[in-house]
């Protein structure tokens, strides 16, 4: 049975709607009007309750999505960090300088060379030369597919810098493609000692070693008339 409108009652009900809306706006998602009177106005109240329900669901959904996105973002950030770390490690690992024999260092280069990598390589090699006191170093570029002007220049610089330190730097394993590029680019490698393979470079370095030992032994032979006075 529908009750007729009562103005005083209506005023109270509107006040209640306002209160409920205010508390919903303040964040209390449990608040409902829940009127038990049935009349023309109760339709509006029910509709408002329904809207509040929808809004609650919507907000819950949104919070869930946001949480998921946040977790994904942190995962991505972590991955990014790992990638950066690995890049750095790779750069370090990509230029291992090892001492293979008395007085001989080898730097095998594998993969494409860029300016940054050659720079790191150069620094590592020079530091290792100073640390170990080796006077011969072999730069093996068998594993390098191509070389451009800049990289060739960097290689030249590395060899020159090694010479300035007092060490000899040999480049080995220049592939036919690289030889062609270098000549086409007009880069002059004649000042640099190049060997066909790493083996040739090793043989050359060992011969150099032996020769310097022989010269040293020779130096111990005294030349009496020259050494006195």
């Amino acid at each position: 049975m529908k009750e007729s409108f009562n103005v005083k009652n209506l005023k109270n009900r509107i006040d209640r709607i306002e209160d409920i809306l205010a508390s919903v706006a303040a964040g209390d998602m449990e608040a409902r009007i829940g009127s038990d009177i049935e009349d023309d106005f109760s339709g509006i109240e029910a509709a408002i309750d329904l809207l509040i329900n929808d809004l609650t669901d919507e907000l819950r959904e949104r919070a869930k999505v946001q949480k998921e996105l946040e977790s994904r973002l942190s995962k991505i950030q972590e991955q990014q960090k790992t990638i950066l770390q690995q890049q750095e490690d790779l750069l370090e690992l990509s230029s291992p300088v090892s001492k293979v024999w008395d007085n001989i260092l080898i730097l095998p280069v594998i993969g494409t060379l860029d300016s940054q990598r050659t720079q790191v390589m150069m620094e590592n090699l020079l530091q290792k030369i100073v640390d170990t006191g080796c006077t011969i170093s072999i730069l093996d570029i068998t594993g390098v597919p191509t070389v451009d002007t800049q990289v060739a220049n960097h290689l030249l610089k590395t060899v020159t810098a090694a010479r300035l330190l007092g060490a000899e730097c040999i480049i080995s394993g220049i592939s036919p493609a690289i030889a062609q590029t270098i000549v086409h680019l007009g880069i002059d490698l004649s000042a640099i000692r190049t060997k066909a393979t790493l083996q040739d470079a090793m043989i050359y370095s060992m011969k150099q070693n032996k020769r310097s030992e022989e010269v040293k032994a020779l130096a111990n032979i005294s030349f009496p008339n020259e050494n006195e006075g």
Partner: protein
Amino acid sequence: MNQYEKRIPIIKIHDYLIVPIQVDMHDKQAIQLQSQILEEIARTRAKGVLIDISVLEMVDSFIGRMLSGMASMAAIMDTSVVIVGMQPAVAITLVELGLEMPGVDTALNMEKGMEMLERKLNTRKIDTY
């Protein structure tokens, strides 16, 4: 005389002169050192000069040119100059500056530099024998 005018010692050992450069040189001082070394070569009749720059963190283009210039001047006076103990960073800087110092002998340390000079002088002796 100012703070830069700290004297760099030139030490004579047997046939060699040893010049340990341990302070960052001022251009004027570099030129002074150059003529001092050449005079010492003439006075002591040294056969070789070892210039130790192992403590220098920085070598500018002027000093670089001075060093290579001195090597050629000494060569005319029949004396070999070996530059000893250059730091990697210095070598990189010089190469970047395009100062590749052709014709200058270099050695990793004093010992190797001395050996290098001995080798050179001995080959010379062997040639004359």
